[in-house]
């Protein structure tokens, strides 16, 4: 069939919205009509090249080309057609996508760590999970799809393993945000940082991830939630999502948190800036108290191999640095669980959406993100 999608043909270019050819779903695959897709910063990382494999690494590991690529890894839609062997979904089902598949059978899925599913290793391969061939084509070329999803498309074909069924009454925009940003931020605070009642928590960077780390820390019973962001609009918003204090920079956070905690500093520091530059770590660890936890959530440039960590302090003060993907949550349990909290009024999702865009306006949406105008932008179809 013919459909329309936003394609990135190379680093530094705009998204090109154009007609593509979409093949029907094969074994284990599903044809999905997209209803909403989040404009996440990770797709922007493909534009800037931060998440693109360098040419020498590509040759060393014989990796396929990244481009051309249909963007989008946050999304909600309705199942239109299922391929052979699909047993957990049927046409008409509402689904959330999951940017990491959950096979349910590997070592990690079997022990409650679906966010580390072994199928995630194929993220840099082109094509579909089972046979590595493409269902998406344009200008005579096979198209890669972001995170095996490609949600910047009116229709897409993805594997059943990347889809989570959700209840029909939930708004699509809310579902699309939970599929990556909300879960990642909330889980960073609740699951990975292990925020406990009475803790002091600092969240550095208040975008689509950080705002949900603020919500999660509040829900887990934090006494202080300090939101750090240079943009005044985001600091104001953070207070609505549960922050108790805000400061514009890490430098200003240091004396502030020192005073607030009588010098004990934060129990948890969650790093959710736009880009995780290594020189941010010195400040992050200074904000972290003795025995405290610093969670690194944001995407760092792939080729960056150094960061400003004082290992003497790390050892002597028993601090820990923890990485996290998807907030260390399990997509199949936690996406429905977060949406049920939204339904009960305990999780703000509608308030995250600053503006919605048509697929054709995708470049305007990303410009608004770069300009700091949006907490979250969402494409609605």
């Amino acid at each position, binding site marked *: 069939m013919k459909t329309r999608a936003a394609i990135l043909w190379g680093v530094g270019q705009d998204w090109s919205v154009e007609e593509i050819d979409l093949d029907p779903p094969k*074994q*284990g695959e599903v044809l999905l009509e997209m209803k909403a897709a989040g404009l996440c910063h990770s797709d922007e990382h493909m534009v800037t090249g931060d998440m693109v494999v360098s040419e020498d690494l590509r040759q060393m590991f014989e990796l396929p080309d990244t481009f051309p690529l249909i963007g989008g890894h946050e999304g909600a839609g309705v199942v239109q057609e299922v391929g*052979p*062997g*699909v*047993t*957990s979904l049927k046409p008409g089902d509402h689904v959330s996508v999951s940017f990491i598949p*959950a*096979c*349910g*059978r*590997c*070592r990690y*899925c*079997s*022990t*409650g*760590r*679906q966010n580390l599913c072994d199928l995630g290793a194929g993220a840099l391969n082109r094509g579909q999970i*089972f046979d590595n061939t493409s269902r998406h084509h344009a200008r005579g070329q096979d198209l890669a799809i972001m995170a095996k999803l490609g949600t910047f498309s009116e229709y897409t074909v993805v594997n059943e393993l990347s889809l989570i069924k959700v209840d029909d009454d939930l708004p699509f925009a809310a579902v699309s945000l939970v599929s990556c940003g909300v879960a990642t931020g909330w889980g960073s605070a609740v699951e990975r940082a292990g925020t406990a009642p009475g803790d002091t928590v600092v969240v550095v960077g208040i975008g689509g991830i950080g705002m949900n780390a603020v919500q999660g820390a509040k829900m887990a019973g934090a006494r202080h939630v300090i939101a750090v962001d240079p943009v005044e609009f985001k600091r104001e918003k953070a207070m609505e999502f549960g922050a108790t204090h805000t400061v514009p920079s890490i430098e200003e956070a240091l004396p502030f948190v020192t005073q607030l905690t009588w010098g004990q500093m934060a129990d948890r520091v969650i790093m959710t800036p736009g880009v995780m530059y290594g020189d941010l770590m010195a400040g992050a660890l200074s904000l972290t108290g003795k025995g405290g936890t610093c969670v690194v959530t944001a995407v760092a440039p792939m080729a960056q191999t150094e960061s400003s960590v004082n290992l003497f302090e790390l050892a002597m003060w028993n601090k820990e640095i923890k990485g996290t993907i998807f907030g260390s949550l*399990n*997509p*199949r*349990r936690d996406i429905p669980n977060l949406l049920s909290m939204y339904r009960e009024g305990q999780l703000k999702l509608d308030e995250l959406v600053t503006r919605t865009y048509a697929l054709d306006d995708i470049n305007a949406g990303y410009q608004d993100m770069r300009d700091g105008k949006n907490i979250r932008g969402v494409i609605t179809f």
Partner: protein
Amino acid sequence: MKTKAAVLWEVGKDWSVEEIELDPPKQGEVLVKLAASGMCHSDEHLLTGDLPFALPIIGGHEGAGVVEEVGEGVTWLQPGDHVVFGFIPSCGRCPSCSTGHQNLCDLGALLGIGMQISDGTARHHAQGKDIGLMCLLGTFSHHTVVNEASCIKIEDDIPLDRACLMGCGVVTGWGSAVYAADVQPGETVVVAGVGGIGANAIQGAKLAGAKRIIAIDPLENKREKAMDFGATHTAESFDAALPLVQDITWGTMANKVILTLGVGNGDLLASALALTSKGGRVVVTNIHPAAEMTANVSLLDLTLMEKQVVGSLFGSGNPRYDIPRLLGLYREGQLDLDGLVTRSYTLDEVNVGYQDMRDGKNIRGVMVYE
């Protein structure tokens, strides 16, 4: 196709080994040629009527074999793969499977029904009737058709007559110590009942670094066997264990007490808690009579001494993770499976094997097929 299986037609009768008709696998199902099956006490419960499953039924829930054919939509297995069956399926999608509790998979609700997971019908037929499958498996058969959700792929070099024990008893015992009791290095552990489960609880406690392992069993040969598996002390009863544990722990008692009796008895919980230290834990792994509604426990002692009573199914393990993991330990010589098997039988000898079990002759009997 035709194959041979041990069918139970009526409570109280012997297993009837006969030719049955087996349909090909449907959506999501696989045909497996079984190599071996454990002879577990739970299958005996079918015969006594303690497990009130629908009859007729093909027994057996500890099996290992080789995949011969896969039905439509099977993507994780192919002919030639070696598999062990999990006595609880693991769908990989439900809330329990999604959070590392595959032993509580929602598909476990279908165990008592015995028909295929995919559509609730039978692939096994004999004498013009549909036959159910013990735990959706029916391993007392040369061939069976089961859902992919019940199959765990293993490496080809593992002997299948040992691998079959992973489907139930070994993981249940080992996990009771390692996961449910969460035995830590330096702890004192009591294992009450040294059968197919208890022997593996002892092995698990030892590997987890227990300082002392006290095995309780009335039979001398079982107590001797317990020492082979890693026990440091033995006692013939709870009463005999109490002064022993007081003495060797200087009165601080056992950090963990694991109950792996033939059949549990609520009256014994107080004895188990008496062996348990402040802040310690009792793990209830053995089956109790379904109608038993009371247990003997001082709740004041539970509160003031902060003791815990914890139930455990399949040793609180995840079949897809723990079965390959424990077989890896077997390969490295850190888990003794060979020492568990007292005698092997053919399918035709199924009733002989169960008589030996009743007579207390076996730690574990295993049926080995052609």
